[in-house]
């Protein structure tokens, strides 16, 4: 029996490597970079888990997936049981297995990581979720629910909304998601490129929610098409998970020149509207030989790698601190480098320079040096006098982050906001208005998919209690 492996035997197994598409090839296509483990690899990796009593990995997961349980089932080759254990706590496991920063969450807590490499929980999650999708016909359907007779509305079809909707539906409530865009998934679809998260994965995860009874209505903008007040009248409870969509602008000269994009616009054109990916797509996008992406987060990496795939000869990250200060996942930075992305570090943009026809032609930059730590704990970049230089760039993409979109909140003055315009909630996701809950980026500012999902899950539990007491 595999579970009879001794700790020593388990410790002797080396961590599996994720097979990837060849870097030169993939830097010119949109197919997924990570190819997934084989069953043999996945089982061997699962056998590295020491089945420790303290289970710190679970505490490291914002949705508290029963990691030891699903990993143990996988180690024994019982994939159905592994899928059952995984999906009990995670509504979007195939998404999380691809985009979660496991290295700072579950894997960061793994006992095996104290000396050596932690168990590759993310790879295993992806493997089990993909297996479950491919074999859904053979798996038992969702358990029958007892209708509560209560109706809940969910604003936004991103990770927070989808999670909340799934949790509410399995508890017997009738759930309708209202999505402002024309398709499902929110940031999962418009913000994350195909090569990191294939659209087919989102479609299947959304399909599973529809199968448990969740209704989804696209093209409904809460705050405009319907007000929050109307939702409160028509539904017994409301969850707001409409995201943080409002770009932070550069605030430098030339940011309105032709060729300057916000990350949201650039990624939406490509990911949601098919620009440059679908043959003969009507959606235009500027390709550019030289593309400069300003920022150092995961969104910046998504933009620069997309630019590379759209044919940029030089696709560059321009970041005012150093590489070790970049907030992007190490894996994304590594992948970007393999794909030929240039990293122009310790460089701050001063202006976008244009030609006489209003097109961007270069980014005027200044070199920076790292000084004392600032409020974020990272060393503060300070400008180096006389170090200005111009970087050729016909396309400049601003990936500096997002702020709270006021479209919904501005129409409901009674909803309490903080000074950044984010909705204030208690730890259960309850807002200042009875029956209205919120989570994800509209509450916490730009964060990760899994934190938004954690919010959706917690709020759904609180909403369930509210609906049952009302």
């Amino acid at each position: 029996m595999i579970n009879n492996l001794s700790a020593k035997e388990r410790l002797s197994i080396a961590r599996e490597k994720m097979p990837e598409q060849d870097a030169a090839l993939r830097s010119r296509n949109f197919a997924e970079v990570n190819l997934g483990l084989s069953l043999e690899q996945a089982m061997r990796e699962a056998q590295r888990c020491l089945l420790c009593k303290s289970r710190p990995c679970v505490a490291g997961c914002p949705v508290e997936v029963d990691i030891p349980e699903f990993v143990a089932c996988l180690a024994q080759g019982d994939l159905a049981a592994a899928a059952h254990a995984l999906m009990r706590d995670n509504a979007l496991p195939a998404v999380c297995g691809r985009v979660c920063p496991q290295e700072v969450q579950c894997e960061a807590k793994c006992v095996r990581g104290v000396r050596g490499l932690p168990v590759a929980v993310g790879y295993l999650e992806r493997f089990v979720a993909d297996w479950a999708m491919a074999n859904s016909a053979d798996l038992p359907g969702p358990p029958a629910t007892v209708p509560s007779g209560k109706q809940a509305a969910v604003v936004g079809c991103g990770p927070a909304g989808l999670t909340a909707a799934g949790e509410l539906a399995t508890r017997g409530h009738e759930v309708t998601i209202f999505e402002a865009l024309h398709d499902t998934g929110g940031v999962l679809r418009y913000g994350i490129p195909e090569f990191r998260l294939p659209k087919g994965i989102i479609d299947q995860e959304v399909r599973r929610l529809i199968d448990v009874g969740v209704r989804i209505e696209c093209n409904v903008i809460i705050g405009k098409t319907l007000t929050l007040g109307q939702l409160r009248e028509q539904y017994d409870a409301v969850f707001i998970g409409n995201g943080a969509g409002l770009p932070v602008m550069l605030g430098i000269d030339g940011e309105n020149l032709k060729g300057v994009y916000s990350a949201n616009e650039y990624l939406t054109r490509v990911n949601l509207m098919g620009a440059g990916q679908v043959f003969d797509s009507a959606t235009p996008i500027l390709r550019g030989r030289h593309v400069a992406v300003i920022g150092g987060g995961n969104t910046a990496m998504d933009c620069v790698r997309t630019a590379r795939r759209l044919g940029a000869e030089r696709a560059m990250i321009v970041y005012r601190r150093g590489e070790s200060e970049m907030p992007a996942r190490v894996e994304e930075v590594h992948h970007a480098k393999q794909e030929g992305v240039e990293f122009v570090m310790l460089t701050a943009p001063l202006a976008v320079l244009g030609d006489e026809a209003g097109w961007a032609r270069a980014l005027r930059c200044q070199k920076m040096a790292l000084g004392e730590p600032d409020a974020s704990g990272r060393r503060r970049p300070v400008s180096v006098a006389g170090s200005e230089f111009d970087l050729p760039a016909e396309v400049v993409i601003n990936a500096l982050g997002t702020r709270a979109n006021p479209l919904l909140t501005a129409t409901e003055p009674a909803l309490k906001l903080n000074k950044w315009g984010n909705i204030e909630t208690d730890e259960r996701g309850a807002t200042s208005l009875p029956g209205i809950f919120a989570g994800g980026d509209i509450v916490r500012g730009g964060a990760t998919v899994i934190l938004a999902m954690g919010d959706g899950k917690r709020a759904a539990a609180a909403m369930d209690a509210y609906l049952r007491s009302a």
Partner: protein
Amino acid sequence: MFKVLENEVLAPGLHRLVVEAPRVAAARRPGQFVIVRSAPGEERIPLTIGDADGASGTLTLFVQAIGAGTRKIVAVPPGGFLRDVAGPLGQPTHIENWGRVACIGGGVGTAVLYPLAKALAEAGNQVTTVIGGRSAEFILLEKELAAFSAEVRVTTEDGSRGRRGFVTLELEDLLRNPARRPRSVFAIGPVPMMRAVAEQTRPHGVATIVSLNPIMIDGTGMCGGCRVVVGTEARFACVDGPEFDGHLVDFQGLADRLTMYHEHEAQCRLAHAGGGMP
């Protein structure tokens, strides 16, 4: 899916569509717009709502077929469907009784001007309407506007209807005559026309509102693509507009950004040659 009930050709390439969209029709106020997509894979096109009927749940849209996306929208026959109609978006027009106002419409802008002019008249304003177009066939809604305007003046570039020349000729007459000078001017049409009107009213100190049509993606402030400089500030036309003080708008920047995809559009036209582009 949103059903198209009527599809009428008003002028070459210009269609009037009546679309079933009950929620949007109920929420809509003059000056707001919708984002329309004809089918999966097509572009999202912002279109001003020409009129709405909350009781029947319908919107009237005026669509000028220019690019691939708009051509596909006008190709939907009555009884057919538009995949997506999202809205109402943008800020409603600020309507008050200024007394004497002038409404200036150019080409398809006249259709967008119609609900605004009507609302101004209903608020008690004395409305003088000036509409212009390339030639007589591009003069829209003259009779409809006359129903509530104190006067409708028409200009055409080729002189085939009304006075030969641009709308600015007629506006100049109004501005020069102290007895007729409007307190506020509303101008909707091509960027060069709105820019010319704003420059014309500036020395007279007459408040001038223009409705902008920059490139737009989501319409909710998310992408920032529709940014336009107003005064010294970058504003998003989708959530802050689409109407702005014409004396503060950076029309050059707007005109520049509107040419961003001209090359792409030209290529699309070549690829779809014979597709019925006027």
